C-alpha cells in the first residue's frame, strides 16, 4: 500500500482508531464529556483528512476508491455524524439510568461503515460496509435496554436487516455466478448491458436488499416502529447517515451497471418511486407521533430522491447530492429540536409535547417550524431548492408521471408538517405534558444554530454548493 493510498484511507483509520481508543479509555475510567470530545474530535479530524486528502481519484485496493463522489458523500456523512454526536451528549446526560459512553463507539463504527459504503466499488466492500453500519445500528437502536420499546425496535431491525442482507447476498451470488467477478465495473463490463434471467434476478435481488435498507415502498413497514422505539439520536442517525450512505452506494452501483437505462428496472423503480412517495405521505397524515411522522416523511423523501436517481446523468446525480444534503440538514434540525426537548424519562415525540412551544421557547419553535417547512419544500429553505432540482432533473429526463407524483404527494405532505407547526404556535389549554425543557446545553445550541445557518444558506444562495456537487459527481464515474 502506497503512502498516497494510506492518505486516502485516513478518514477510516481515524474513525476506527478513535473507536478502539474510546474503548480502551472506558476500560480505565468512564467520563462522558471526555468520550464525546474524543468522538467529535475524531469526526472533525476525519473530515479534515478528507479535505486535505488526495485530489485525484485514488483506488485503495480493489475494494475501495476515493474520488470526488466519495469525498462529497463521506463529508456529508461525517458532518451528520458529528452533529448527532454533539446532540447525544446532552441527551444521554439527562438519561441518568443508561451507561452512555458506548454509544459513541457504536456511532463511530457506524460512520466508518457508511464511509466504506460511499467508497465501495466492489461487492465485498459494499457488503462489509453495510454490515458494519447495520451491526452498529442494531445496538444503537436497542441502546436503552431497560426500555421494552427500544429492545423490540432493535429486534425488529435485526430480523428485517438480516433478512434483507440475505436477499442482497443471494443477488450478489447470482451476479457472481454469471460474471465470475465481484468488482462492480468489471461485472458490468462482462454483462455489457444484456441481462439474462440469472443476472436479472441477481440485480433485482440486490435492488430489493437496498430497497429494504432505504425503506422504499413495498419494504417500508419496519421504519416507523423502529424509529419510534429507538432513542432520538439513533433515529436521527438512521434517518440521515444510514440512508445517505446507502443512497450514495445505489447511485454508484447504478452508474457502474447502468441500471437506469435497462427497461425492466426502469419501470420497476419508477413504480416503486410512485408507491413510495404516496405511501410515505399518506401514511404520515394520521401520525401524531413525531418520530413515526419523520419515519414516513423519510420514506417519502427517499421516493423523491428516486425521481432524480432515475433521471440519471450529471444533472440527476447533482440533484441527488444536493437533495440528500438538504434532507440531512433539515431532518437533523427537526431531530435536534426533539432531542433538546426530550426529558429524563421519554423522548418528546408526541404532538402534545409541542403545543405551546412558541410560548416557552420562541426561538426553538421558530427553528422547528423552519425545518418542517424545509421538509415540505417551501421557498427560502434548502428543501425548496432541493425539490426544484429534483423536478428539473425529472423534467429534463421526461419522467412526467414521476414528476406529477412528486408534485401531488409533496402537496399532501404540507398538511402533516403544518399540523406540527400549528401545534407549536397554538395556545396551550393545559400545562405542557413535558416539563419546560431543561437549560439547553451550549453545544446543542451551537449545533442547532449551525444547522439553521446551513438551511438558509442552501436555501438562499445554493450556487456555490451546487457547483461543488457538480464537480464531485462529474469525477465520480
Amino acid at each position: 500500500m502506497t503512502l498516497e493510498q494510506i492518505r486516502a484511507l485516513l478518514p477510516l483509520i481515524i474513525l476506527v482508531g478513535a473507536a478502539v481508543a474510546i474503548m480502551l479509555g472506558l476500560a480505565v475510567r468512564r467520563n462522558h464529556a471526555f468520550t464525546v470530545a474524543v468522538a467529535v474530535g475524531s469526526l472533525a479530524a476525519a473530515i479534515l483528512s478528507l479535505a486535505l486528502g488526495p485530489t485525484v481519484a485514488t483506488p485503495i485496493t480493489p475494494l475501495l476508491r476515493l474520488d470526488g463522489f466519495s469525498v462529497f458523500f463521506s463529508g456529508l456523512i461525517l458532518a451528520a455524524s458529528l452533529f448527532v454526536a454533539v446532540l447525544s451528549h446532552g441527551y444521554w446526560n439527562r438519561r441518568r439510568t443508561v451507561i452512555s459512553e458506548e454509544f459513541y463507539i457504536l456511532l463511530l463504527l457506524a460512520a466508518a461503515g457508511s464511509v466504506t459504503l460511499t467508497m465501495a466499488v466492489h461487492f465485498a466492500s459494499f457488503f462489509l460496509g453495510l454490515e458494519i453500519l447495520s451491526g452498529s445500528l442494531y445496538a444503537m437502536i436497542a441502546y436503552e435496554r431497560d426500555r421494552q420499546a427500544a429492545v423490540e425496535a432493535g429486534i425488529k431491525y435485526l430480523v428485517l436487516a438480516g433478512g434483507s442482507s440475505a436477499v442482497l447476498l443471494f443477488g450478489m451470488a447470482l451476479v457472481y455466478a454469471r460474471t465470475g467477478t465481484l468488482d462492480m465495473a468489471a461485472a458490468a463490463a462482462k454483462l455489457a448491458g444484456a441481462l439474462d434471467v440469472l443476472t436479472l434476478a441477481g440485480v433485482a435481488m440486490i435492488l430489493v436488499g437496498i430497497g429494504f435498507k432505504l425503506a422504499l415502498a413495498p419494504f417500508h413497514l419496519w421504519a416507523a416502529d423502529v424509529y419510534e422505539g429507538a432513542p432520538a439520536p439513533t433515529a436521527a442517525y438512521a434517518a440521515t447517515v444510514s440512508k445517505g450512505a446507502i443512497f450514495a452506494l445505489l447511485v454508484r452501483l447504478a452508474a457502474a451497471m447502468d441500471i437506469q437505462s435497462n427497461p425492466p428496472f426502469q419501470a420497476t423503480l419508477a413504480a416503486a418511486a410512485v408507491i413510495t412517495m404516496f405511501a410515505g405521505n399518506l401514511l404520515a397524515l394520521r401520525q401524531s407521533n413525531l418520530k413515526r411522522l419523520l419515519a414516513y416523511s423519510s420514506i417519502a423523501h427517499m421516493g423523491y430522491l428516486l425521481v432524480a436517481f432515475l433521471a440519471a446523468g450529471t444533472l440527476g446525480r447533482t440533484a441527488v447530492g444536493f437533495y440528500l444534503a438538504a434532507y440531512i440538514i433539515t431532518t437533523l434540525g427537526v431531530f435536534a429540536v426533539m432531542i433538546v426537548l426530550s426529558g429524563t424519562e421519554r423522548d418528546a415525540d408526541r404532538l402534545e409535547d409541542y403545543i405551546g412551544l412558541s410560548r416557552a421557547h420562541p426561538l426553538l419553535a421558530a427553528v422547528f417550524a423552519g425545518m418542517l417547512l424545509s421538509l415540505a419544500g417551501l421557498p427560502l429553505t434548502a428543501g425548496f431548492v432541493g425539490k426544484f432540482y429534483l423536478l428539473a432533473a425529472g423534467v429534463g429526463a421526461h419522467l412526467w408521471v414521476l414528476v406529477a407524483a412528486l408534485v401531488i404527494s409533496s402537496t399532501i405532505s404540507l398538511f402533516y408538517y403544518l399540523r406540527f407547526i400549528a401545534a407549536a404556535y397554538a395556545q396551550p389549554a393545559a400545562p405542557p405534558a413535558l416539563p419546560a425543557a431543561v437549560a439547553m446545553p451550549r453545544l446543542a445550541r451551537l449545533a442547532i444554530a449551525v444547522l439553521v445557518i446551513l438551511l438558509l444558506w442552501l436555501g438562499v444562495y445554493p450556487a456555490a454548493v451546487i457547483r461543488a456537487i457538480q464537480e464531485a459527481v462529474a469525477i465520480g464515474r
Partner: protein
Amino acid sequence: MPGLLADGVELWPLALYFVAVVVLAGGILGLSYVLGERHRERATGMPYESGMIPTGSARVRMPVEFYLVALFFVIFDLEAVFIFGWAISARQLGWAGYVEVVIFIAVLVSALVYLWRQGALDWGTARRAGADRDRSGRRHGDE
C-alpha cells in the same frame, strides 16, 4: 420482456418440481390427518423421554454469565479463524501482512481489556460491583 427466456432455460421442470413438492407435502399431511389415530389420554401431551415421567418445569434459570462467555467464545473463536488464515500464508504476505495482523490482534486485545475491566469475565453476581462502581463514578465525575 422479450429475450428473457431466450437463452434456453426451460421453466416447466421447475413448475413440475413445485407441483410435486406441494402434492407430496400435502399428501403426507393429509393422509396422516385422515388415517392417523386420535386419542386423548392423560399422558398424550406429555414429553416422551425414554419412558421417564418429567419432573419440574423446563424453564430453568441459567446464570447470564453462561451466555456472555458463550458469546465471547464465538467472537474470539471466529477471529482466530482470521489469524489462521494469515498464518498459513505468513511468508508470502511478508512484513505488510505481519503489520496488518498485529493491528488486528491489538484491536482484539483492547476488546479483551475492555471486557475484563467491565467485569464481563467475572463469574457470579457479587463481583460485578466493579461495573457498578464505574457507573456511579461517572455520575459524580460528570457534573
